[in-house]
């Protein structure tokens, strides 16, 4: 299974994911991004914060190729797997 790195972008700032995780493919990458973003948004809401739609995951493979950009706004607006 390939390893994917979920870097997290907040405006100009990029927090690097040095660890990455093994996932079977792009569909699983998208599902993980969706579920994780839903989780973060829900936690933020419970903490009294506005929805963090300006953030995104930038997911790269081991060769550092950009595989997917996943804006948190998608998780706020679209259905997906239960986190």
């Amino acid at each position, binding site marked *: 299974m390939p390893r994917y790195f*979920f*870097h*997290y972008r*907040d405006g100009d*700032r990029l*927090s*690097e*994911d*040095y*660890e990455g*995780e093994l996932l079977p493919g792009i569909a699983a990458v998208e599902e*993980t*991004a969706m*579920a*994780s973003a839903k*989780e*973060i948004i829900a*936690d*933020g809401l*419970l*903490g009294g914060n506005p929805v963090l739609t300006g*953030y995104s*995951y930038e997911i790269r493979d081991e060769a550092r190729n950009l595989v997917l950009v996943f804006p948190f706004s998608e998780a706020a607006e679209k259905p997906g797997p239960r*986190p």
Partner: protein
Amino acid sequence: MYKPNNKKYKNELIRRLSQEDLALVEPDLVRCELPLRMMLEKRNSPIEFVYFLEGGIGSIVAKMPMGRDTEVGLIGFEGMTGTALVLGDDQSTHECYVQLAGEAHRMPVDQLRSALAQSTTLRPFLLRYVQALFIQTSYTALVNARSKLEERLARWLLMCDDRVGGDRLTITHEFLAIMLGVRRPGVTVALQILEGKGLIRANRGEIILRDRNGLIELADGAYSEPEGEYRRLIGEIG
């Protein structure tokens, strides 16, 4: 009442055993390495060894059949695995595995059981640790329902640091995800929030605690109250 007299051990429980109880268990203690991910207890299986940790971190992990692992207990040199045994059960309800490599003194369960039967003081002492662990777990239930991700992260980092020392933690995001009960990518987000507040610095695979007091404040009572209970029940660490 429980003075750390047995100074050749790092484990806070063994350090505090009475001379008689130490004499009872010492012949059966075997020093062993605890490599990362070593399984110390299997879910719903008989316990084979009890580990008194000297260093490193063991994590008690509960699992929903369809879901992800979630940590419900953290054990370092202040504690032991096998609390079910001290309570008279022979099997573990949860998995317990090594999340940060270290060492331990381990003891086969039959020997511990016979030591517990021979001594009138050993079980009461170990039951004090069971109480401390019960309080830790109760607080975990509390923060899981009531605290924000970053507050829970602050608590876990402090708890890990207590067991490792040096304000420098080499823990994986995978482990932090289990502690927090979230998907792994979310850990990066939570770490970034703490970094933004100047409380930690997250480097490749390493987390540096920059402001312990700030982290304690952020954890908002979820850290330090259970730790105070440990001191009350067992004693000062270190």
